[in-house]
């Protein structure tokens, strides 16, 4: 019985190793970032894993040693002290070890939390491109206010340029995630969130909606292509020349629940994004929505940063650039 069992266990283990090694390391897209935000997040993942490992690995080894050494068997040499139940030095030690580790990890976390605040602009000598993203039932609508084009379930932008994604939802909440560029942010109805991302190299990146929003949620994947500036400009020209326009009626068509293929539009109704964001704001109300409805003046996106006094201290100069222009909107 025992040997059969061992064979089964070994077989399973080997099968697992085989299958895992069958997947190439490129598939671990979270650990294979192609932009500054994703890079920093990967660094943070590695730092925190290491810090945790400092405490976890010894504990695992200690567990194995103690369980083995103190098992009950005839003629064992290990000591047996049934009344030994307290030792101030030892207890102080293992209160302090996790406290020290958590202080270090906490400091690192706080530093990165401010550094990677999603609405913080990425330092670059290039002007950021704004892309307005709307999650719908069950498709992504991307609008380029600068270029006056729109796409569905497909997004393209030049490499090495900060992209300012403005996220909202025309339906239940979703979460906008392009793992190789950086972490996700919720797209929520009635407000516009800002997420800065940048691709450092050309490539075709997987994007998805990471928060369940109903029946065909799994269909909300899209491709994000980072290309050269020339290629991007050519593509914009091409879309403007060849694709149909997105009309208000066309948008109503998109609102109908259902999946969608990639679509391209040469223009879109002016102020559509602002309209989506502010659709629930009632005349004269000053509720939670109108506060977040900073999206009404969609460029006033830095409310998170300004609310949190991010302009204190070291971040002052960077944040100031990005946030102050929008304050008039509040």
């Amino acid at each position, binding site marked *: 019985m025992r040997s059969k*069992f061992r064979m089964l266990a070994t077989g399973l283990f080997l099968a*697992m190793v085989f299958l*895992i090694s069958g*997947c190439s390391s490129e*598939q671990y*897209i*979270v650990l294979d970032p192609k932009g500054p935000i*994703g890079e*920093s*997040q*990967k660094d*943070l993942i590695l730092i925190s894993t290491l810090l945790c490992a400092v405490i*976890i690995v010894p504990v*695992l080894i200690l*567990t194995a040693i*103690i*369980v083995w050494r*103190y098992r*009950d068997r005839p003629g064992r040499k290990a*000591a*047996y002290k*049934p009344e*030994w*139940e307290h030792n101030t030095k030892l*207890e102080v030690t*293992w*209160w302090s*070890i*996790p*406290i020290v580790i958590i202080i270090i990890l906490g400091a690192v*976390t*706080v530093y*990165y*939390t*401010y550094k*990677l*605040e999603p*609405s913080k602009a990425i330092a670059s000598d290039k002007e950021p491109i704004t892309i307005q993203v709307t999650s719908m039932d069950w498709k992504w609508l991307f609008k380029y206010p600068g270029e006056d084009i729109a796409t569905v379930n497909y997004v393209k932008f030049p490499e090495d340029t900060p992209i300012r994604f403005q996220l909202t939802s025309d*339906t*239940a*909440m979703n*979460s906008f*995630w392009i*793992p190789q560029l950086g*972490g*996700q942010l*919720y797209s*929520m*109805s*009635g407000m516009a*969130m800002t997420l800065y991302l940048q691709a450092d190299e050309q490539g075709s990146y997987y994007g*998805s909606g990471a928060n*369940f929003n109903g029946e065909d*949620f*799994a269909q909300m994947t899209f491709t994000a292509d980072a290309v050269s500036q020339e290629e991007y400009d050519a593509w914009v020209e091409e879309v403007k020349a060849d694709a149909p326009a997105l009309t208000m009626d066309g948008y109503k068509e998109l609102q109908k629940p259902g999946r969608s293929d990639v679509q391209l539009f040469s223009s879109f109704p002016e102020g559509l994004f602002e309209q989506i964001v502010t659709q*629930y704001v009632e005349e004269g109300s000053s509720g939670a*929505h109108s506060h977040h409805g900073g999206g009404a003046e969609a460029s006033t996106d830095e409310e*998170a*940063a300004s609310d949190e006094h*991010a302009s204190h201290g070291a971040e002052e100069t960077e944040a100031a650039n990005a946030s102050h222009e929008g304050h008039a909107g509040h």
Partner: protein
Amino acid sequence: MWHKIKDFSSEFFVTGDPLILGAQVSIAITLVAIVFTLTYFKKWRWLWTEWLTTVDHKRIGIMYIIASILMLFRGGVDALLMRVQLAAPQLEFLHADHYNAIFTTHGVIMILFMAMPLMFGLFNIVVPLQIGARDVAFPFLNSLSFWMFFFGAMLFNVSFIIGGSPDAGWLAYPPLSELSGSPGVGQDFYIWGIQISGIGSLATGINFVVTILKMRAPGMKLMQMPMFSWSVLSSCVTIMFAFPILTVTLFLLFLDRYLGAHFFTLDGGGNPMMYINLIWMWGHPEVYIVILPAFGIFSEIVATFSKKKLFGYKSMVFALMSISFFSFFTWAHHFFTMGSGANVNAFFAITTMLIAIPTGVKVFNWLFTMYRGKLSFPTPMLWTIAFIPCFVVGGMTGVLLSVAPADFQFHNSYFLIAHFHQVLIGGVVFGYFAGLYYWWPKMFGFRLHEGLGKWAFWFWNIGFYVCFMPQYALGLMGMTRRFNEYDFDMGWQPLNVVSTVGAFLMGLAFIFQVWQIAHSIKFLKKETSGDAWDGRTLEWSIPSPAPMYNFARTPVVTSQDDWWEKKQRRLRGEAELPEVAAAEKAPLEPIHMPRNSGIPFIMSTCWFVAGFGFVWDWKWMIVLGLAGVIISMLARSFSYNTDYYIPVDEIERTEAAARGAH
């Protein structure tokens, strides 16, 4: 007329799915079989007088455990269906809407109708025995709590065959859970099922806090209480503060759906984000509610099977209480990606990490309880040993998730799924299994077959790692939770197949456990000593199963691990301490006991009727149900014959029969 009935039933019953049709048929057959068996063996009266009306904490505990094992089966089948779909999405085994319903019910059932009742079952069976009490503080309320849980759970489960299951996720975020997102009745079943059972949970929390504070045996100071009782106290205090939040949140959602209010709607000034905050203010403490008692169980088992005092008792108590406190200040870590800004995220990241400190200390204390101990490894101890590495790793991935900016990459991915299954299975389920194996002889008076138990143990453990380790990798590959299908190009399939194999290994493990129980009942190995594991605490000082009054004489407690100390004194041949000896020699006195009552069962049935009425908006049914509830309350208020005394000669007979066996 015929058409009307046909229309009605096609809306009323879930139709058109062969899987559900199969389930409907098998449920009908099972019900008929149960009714037939009860009638054939003339067991209806026995069922009513011995079980349905009982206020005995031990029997209520057993009913909780039976219900939770049934729910484990259903939640487990849900899990296996999902794993089949994810291993081969090309086959379209489950359609999107069906898949969405299944992950919703899997989550609700496993947390609220499996983990919670299994926990309450162990509370009920163990706590009064451990603190030397005759019953809980409010036995009638205890019975009511159980039946409220039971009928709430049934109301939720019935949605599977009648009306359709909820499919907005286990926490039912609006607007998906609003009328706009879920026009069907599934979401109403969700609200009422959880509301009704939630009242039961809250009452249980209060009941055990009072029991532990007021009903300890004379001499038992708080700081001498067994660690499991401490963990129950910390868990129940958390329940008292957390469950009202759940009740209010779901009530507001109900108002939105039923009366057209706008608390959480997109329009009319509502805010769905408020719901997300509120539900997690309950939801996060909830996971500590279920894990804290598991910590208590491990503490008992480690000490017993190391034959050594629990190391760092005061540290352990402090750790339990601080976890219970901090659990209320971490909720926003469930949505760092909501963009609340760096200050909020930094605050909640730090509070979350803080919880790792007392948890880590507990692990060290368990390790140093074993250090210089004399370890033996029967099944309860095996589960405990398996728990430590599993929980340590799961805890570590939890700390990784608490690093807010990194969480932007982990959130809602399979990394998160793997993490919370590792702490909930590796912590809560392993813990409750350990407790179940440990106290089984005390509950039933016979031992479980160790060999089959070990098979189950290994299948559970290997199955667990095979199932969930690949999911960490899948998360790092960008696979998002709640996907019912994915592109083959993503390269996720091989690991998903491995994961599914692991899930089925755990399914096999469950079968081994059922076999183990059946086998042990058939070849009954009576446990007559009352002290199956050479235990340390009071529950092992009385016969197994405990007589209905628990302790013939109220014990007098002089130390922590009182029963162990007493056995040591006997071994050393010392004279018994005078106050203990006096209590033991005192003449038996009639024991004051609560009378059985049918009111909790009837009142909960009425709640079920009212809830069902609310689900379908049948006014006559709502009125009928609520009227029944009020009448039950009045009946209870005016019943004066609620207690009785067990005469001394009956106690003598019972004790002689129980003690005479050895």
